[in-house]
Structures are given as structure tokens and as C-alpha cells.
């Protein structure tokens, strides 16, 4: 097993990974930027190292600084967490060249799946269903318009090298399309260092269902069921569930089996999530693949009883899948996660500031993952997530009730949070009835604004 692992990340995921490594008996190194030097999880690590200024480009994205810590501390493994360099193939290669194990899939997989049109081609060649889309767009406006007409409006302009919903723009006609392409190209170049774009058919209000897989370096792949992640704002997830409610188990299992077969055929390794859009008629269409641990992994852990981070570390070290997972993994109860963001609950604008008061709920079936303690500051340098609140109960109605109770017992003062949004979601009739799609968050916000206006009148 790894002797010492460097956790190249911050916040809730750094805390989560440090805990898993400790449970595996592995020594740990945590890194921090100047803005994060007081965060509580650093105390969980055996060693800590400063890696630079608050700006992520100079610290958590600074490959040379991280590789210097790797060399300096003698760590033989590196866990990238999620975000930052977790899906950077060049970084994964440099870690390996330095003789350490990158705790994720091989760099070739990160590269292949990181480029969205290449990932689509790889999956489609093995029988994964896809929605209509273009290949990479060139600079020819006429060709772009022709591609959109072939797919049929509305279309979604997407960066091929992208992620996190950045640079994704909808277009309903030719004029909108050309403007969206120009804007997305500039944003994509700046955000991902890659100006490649493609078009996808814009499915109005689909469900976002994703399949969790684990794989070893010996050709074995298994899935750990699915997650429902349709509640999103700005194409970013806010609430996730396992299992996906209101969909036939047989259809979900068939889709999971198909994904597993395809990844086994490709000899994919370690950990991954296949994201799909489900629209009821077209089935589960491939959206993209994430080659890392995901934020929402905890709901899968809750319903399967598998520690995904420990499994990821052991698989990256080369252990066989049958040694890491029990022979059969079932589904137990229902789990739901709410991401607590430091943001305005109606406009979703960032709200950095001091965490003057911070109290979390506790009790059976409640799990809180955070990188902060009371008195810390949520700075504007990183993403707005303060914590993840995960509840696990016997069934979905009980899980929803438990989440509501847990949110009401949560106290966050000093910054605005999206807790009012999640509470409104939990009272939304469509959500309660599992009539969910990616348009639901906007509907909830509309209702909240209408209620606020009625109260003011």
C-alpha cells in the first residue's frame, strides 16, 4: 500500500480524503494556500506544506509547487480530490514521472474523457447512446449554422475541453448561435486553455442521471448504481440523490450494466462517473465522463455501504476489484445530499465572508462534510461550497424529512447561504413527487420570488 499520500486539494474534499487515508493507515501530507492556513482539516494531516498565495493559479493549480512538495516529503502517492488538477492529464503524467502514484485513472483516460467530442466518439463506438450533436466546430460560420440546422434548434454550444457548466450557452436560432459561439470560444480559451467547441441538441428539461463505476488495473469494472443530480443552478449541482427516484429499477440497472460493459471493454481503471441525460423517450444519452471522485460520492456511499475514497486509493495502488468490493453490493434505503453554498439563495450570487456562527446537525443518518469551522472566512478565491449535508434513511420520504430537519438545525451566520432555496425545494410538490428535471431549480426560484413579492405587498 502507499506509504505516504499528498492531498493536492483543499476544503471538504481534502478533509474527506485525509480521513480515508488515515483509516487505511497511510501517512498524509496536506497543502494550503495563504488564504487557507487556518482551516481546521489541516490538523488531520501528519504534515502540512504552504504552496503559495490565495489565487488558485498560484497555489492549488501550481503544478511545480505541488510536485516540489511531493519530492520534499517523499510521498509515494497523490490524491487530487475534485476540481483543480484532478482531471489534468499533464499533471497526472508528471506525478507518475516523479515515481508517485496518481490516485485516479491513467493519464490517457483523463485526456481522452477530458476532451468531450473524443469521449463521445469512444463511448459511441462501443454502443453508448448519444443525443444528436456536431463534431468540433471550425471557424466557418456557414458550416456552424448548417450543423445546428442538421441537429435542430434549440442547440447547446459546449466547450470540448470544459467542465463545471462553464461556457455552455443555449441558442434557439442562427443569430443567437453565432453570438453564443463567439462568447463560448473566448470563455473556453480562457477557462480551459482550449477553444474547441461543439454543438449538442438542447434537451429541454431532461433528468441528469449518472452512474458510478469502480475499476481495477486488471480489466475488471463494476458499477455502484446511479445518482440523480437534476437539481442544478448554472449547470452546477445543488442536490443529489441515490437512488434515482421514480424511475424503473430495471431500466436503471440495464443502463448501469451497459456503462460497465463499455468501460470494461475499454479497460478503464480506478474510478469514474458516466453522466447521462434522461428524457423519458430517448433513454439514457451519454453526456460526459468524469475521471475522478465526485462531490456527490457520499450518497452512493450511504446506500451501498462502500467507502469510495478508500476503494479508489486501493484500486489506484493496484489491488483487484474483488478484493476491494464485496461479491455483491446491494442498495440500502435512500440518501440525499444538499450542497450548502455561500451565495444569495435567489440570485445565486457569491457571498464570501466570515463564518461568524456555524452549527451543524448530528444524529443517526446525518453526515456533514466541510472544510470550515466557526470563525473561519469563506474567501472569494475558491468555489462557494461551505459544506455538504448528507442524510440517509429507510426510504425517500423519510430522507426528505430528515434533510429538512437537518437544515433547520443548521446555523450559518456571517454569509448568505442557499439553505432557503433547498428548504423551498423540499416543499416543492414536483420534487416531493420525484417529478424532477434540470428546469426545476428555476421553477423553485420563481416560486420563492413570487412568495417574497406577495409577502411584501
Amino acid at each position, binding site marked *: 500500500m502507499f506509504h505516504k499520500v499528498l492531498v493536492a486539494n483543499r476544503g471538504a474534499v481534502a478533509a474527506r480524503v485525509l480521513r480515508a487515508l488515515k483509516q487505511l493507515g497511510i501517512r498524509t501530507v496536506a497543502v494550503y494556500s495563504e488564504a487557507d492556513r487556518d482551516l481546521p482539516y489541516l490538523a488531520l494531516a501528519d504534515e502540512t506544506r504552504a504552496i503559495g498565495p490565495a489565487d488558485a493559479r498560484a497555489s492549488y493549480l501550481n503544478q511545480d509547487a505541488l510536485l516540489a512538495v511531493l519530492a520534499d516529503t517523499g510521498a509515494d502517492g497523490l490524491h487530487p480530490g475534485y476540481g483543480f488538477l484532478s482531471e489534468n492529464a499533464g499533471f497526472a503524467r508528471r506525478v507518475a514521472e516523479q515515481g508517485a502514484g496518481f490516485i485516479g485513472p491513467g493519464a490517457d483516460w483523463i485526456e481522452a474523457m477530458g476532451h468531450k467530442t473524443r469521449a463521445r466518439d469512444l463511448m459511441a463506438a462501443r454502443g453508448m447512446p448519444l443525443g444528436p450533436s456536431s463534431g468540433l466546430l471550425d471557424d466557418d460560420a456557414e458550416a456552424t449554422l448548417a450543423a445546428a440546422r442538421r441537429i435542430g434548434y434549440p442547440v447547446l454550444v459546449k466547450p470540448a475541453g470544459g467542465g*463545471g457548466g462553464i461556457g455552455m450557452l443555449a441558442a434557439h436560432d442562427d443569430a443567437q448561435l453565432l453570438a453564443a459561439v463567439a462568447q463560448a470560444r473566448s470563455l473556453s480559451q480562457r477557462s480551459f486553455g482550449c477553444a474547441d467547441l461543439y454543438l449538442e441538441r438542447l434537451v429541454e428539461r431532461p433528468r441528469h442521471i449518472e452512474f458510478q463505476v469502480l475499476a481495477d488495473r486488471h480489466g475488471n469494472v463494476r458499477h455502484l448504481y446511479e445518482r440523480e443530480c437534476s437539481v442544478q443552478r448554472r449547470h452546477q449541482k445543488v442536490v443529489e440523490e441515490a437512488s434515482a427516484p421514480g424511475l424503473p429499477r430495471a431500466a436503471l440497472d440495464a443502463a448501469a450494466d451497459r456503462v460497465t460493459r463499455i468501460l470494461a471493454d475499454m479497460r478503464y481503471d480506478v474510478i469514474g462517473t458516466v453522466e447521462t441525460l434522461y428524457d423519458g423517450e430517448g433513454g439514457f444519452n451519454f453526456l460526459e465522463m468524469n475521471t475522478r471522485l465526485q462531490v456527490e460520492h457520499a450518497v452512493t456511499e450511504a446506500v451501498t455501504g462502500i467507502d469510495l475514497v478508500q476503494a479508489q486509493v486501493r484500486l489506484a495502488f493496484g489491488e483487484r476489484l474483488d478484493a476491494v468490493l464485496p461479491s455483491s453490493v446491494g442498495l440500502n434505503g435512500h440518501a440525499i445530499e444538499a450542497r450548502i453554498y455561500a*451565495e444569495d439563495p435567489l440570485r445565486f*450570487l*457569491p*457571498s*464570501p465572508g466570515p463564518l461568524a456562527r456555524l452549527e451543524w446537525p448530528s444524529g443517526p443518518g446525518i453526515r456533514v462534510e466541510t472544510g470550515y469551522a466557526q470563525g473561519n472566512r469563506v474567501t*472569494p478565491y*475558491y*468555489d462557494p461550497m461551505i459544506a455538504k449535508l448528507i442524510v440517509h434513511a429507510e426510504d425517500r420520504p423519510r430522507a426528505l424529512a430528515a434533510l429538512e430537519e437537518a437544515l433547520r438545525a443548521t446555523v450559518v451566520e456571517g454569509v448568505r447561504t442557499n439553505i432557503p432555496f433547498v428548504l423551498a425545494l423540499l416543499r416543492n410538490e414536483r420534487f416531493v413527487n420525484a417529478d424532477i428535471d434540470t428546469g426545476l431549480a428555476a421553477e423553485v426560484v420563481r416560486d420563492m420570488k413570487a412568495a417574497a413579492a406577495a409577502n411584501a405587498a
Partner: protein
Amino acid sequence: MARIEVLSEITGTVWKVEACVGAAVEAEAALLIVESMKMEIPVPAPAAGTVLELRVGEGDPVEEGQVVAVIEG
């Protein structure tokens, strides 16, 4: 003509200044773009007018409620 102070709605860092002192701006046009928590948020002109002052430059930190520009409109 009224003098209007333009406030940043969020705490962050000025990523880009779009306006120039002395230039005419339309209502809702972005005067500058603030980067915060991995988002880019434009600070729009509250009314059409002329930019009298820009009180921040690219790379400067800004606080929620801080006056970042003044326009005459």
C-alpha cells in the same frame, strides 16, 4: 444630470474593466467584471450616461457595497 455611484454587488477581484472614463454607456452595459468564487459577475451601469470615474482597476480587490465607478446620467 445626476451623479450616480455604482456599487459592486459582491466581494471579489476586478477581472476586467470594460468602461473608459469619459465614454458614454448604455443602461445595463457592463462597466467591469468582478471574479468571485469561480464566477464572473458584471457590474452594470444603473442608467445610461457618461463615465465620470472608475475607482478600481484590473486585479484590485472589491468589497460588496464598495463604490467602483461614478456615472453622470
